[in-house]
């Protein structure tokens, strides 16, 4: 094969052309996918909201308000049906996970009863801590319908009412911690 001589001119030319074409096509693809990506992200959030809240017909994402707690931020998504508040989803976190911070979406009914919990993000060990995720096990079902007012958000070992995931006390504690943080802030911050 013939190797092309390298001169400054043709090197520069070649690189410029290549980068030009690539960046143009990239920009193009980006424009094309921008919409779907945003939609996918929204869909993900909505899905989480829908899974933890009772039926609603407003757009909680648009009504979001936030609150800084413990060096991070909680997001509150009020859900309404026919402008009647049916619950609030709280995007909450706990830094105490086995593998780092975990993020949950907790749906509360207006009286503070936990409607449902979804795991948004975690780095727990597959097969152990990740059982907190509904996709992996039904462990978090035990939170449904419990009101932290009379349901102590702590694992049994620590004198609470939560049955820990087998061999994953740490993850379970973090989970409780996150839920409790959401509950406290919601109650303290008052509902809008």
């Amino acid at each position, binding site marked *: *094969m013939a*190797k*092309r*001589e*390298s*001169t400054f001119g*043709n*090197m520069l030319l*070649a*690189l410029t*052309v*290549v*980068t030009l074409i*690539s*960046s143009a*096509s*990239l920009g193009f*693809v*980006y424009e094309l*996918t921008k919409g*779907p*990506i945003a*939609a*996918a*992200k929204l869909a*993900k959030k909505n899905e989480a909201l829908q899974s933890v809240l009772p039926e609603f017909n407003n757009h909680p994402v648009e009504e979001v308000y936030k609150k800084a707690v413990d060096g991070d931020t909680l997001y509150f998504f009020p859900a309404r049906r026919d402008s009647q508040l049916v619950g609030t989803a709280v995007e909450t976190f706990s830094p105490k996970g086995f593998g780092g911070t975990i993020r949950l979406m907790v749906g509360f009914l207006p009286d503070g009863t936990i409607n449902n919990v979804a795991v948004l993000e975690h780095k727990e*060990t*597959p*097969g*152990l801590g990740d059982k907190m995720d509904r996709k992996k096990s039904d462990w978090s079902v035990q939170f449904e319908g419990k009101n932290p007012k009379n349901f102590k958000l702590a694992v049994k070992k620590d004198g609470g009412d939560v049955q820990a995931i087998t061999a994953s006390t740490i993850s379970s504690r973090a989970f409780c911690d996150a839920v409790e943080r959401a509950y406290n802030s919601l109650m303290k911050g008052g509902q809008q």
Partner: protein
Amino acid sequence: MNQWNNFSKGIFKENAVFVQVLGMCPTLGVTTSAYNGLGMGLATTFVLLMSNIVVSMVKGFIPDKVRIPAYIVIIASFVTIVELIMQAFVPVLFDELGLFIPLIVVNCLVLGRSEAFASKNNVLSSAVDGLGMGLGFTLALFMLGSIRELLGSGAWLGIKFIHGDGMLLFILAPGAFIALAYLIAIMNRVNRRNA
């Protein structure tokens, strides 16, 4: 070269994972399940195929000195395209594969093929080569993913076979190394016997 040979060498004789030991990071990093392995393999295959085609098309115009940067730009573009597309249409898989998608760029396999093959061959051969190599890579990832999923969670492609957990180690980092070690050893043996 016979196109079939050209294609099949990437799957067996010159398999990127088992024989050339290239692209190890995604091989180990994303194969916690067969499905992930498959997804990663296909994404890589796409980049490989496209970049091989483009490189073999433009090879005549690129001066030698800027060959590598030019190829990298081409590859990186396709990687970004894959990234964007996956984000848009398979966001779940994209989340699972995470960091390893942008890292396709530095997968030695991709650049290596552009350098060693596409820059010397015509478009058709390069396409076939890229496809073969990519599918070989995919096959390897799929196999490793299957093994790890089977041993680690007692499931395959998400279908559970046992109640409870498998050997967790295989889902974790050490299991990836160990499973791959034996897979390569077995492949060595098979290849030697066939040779």
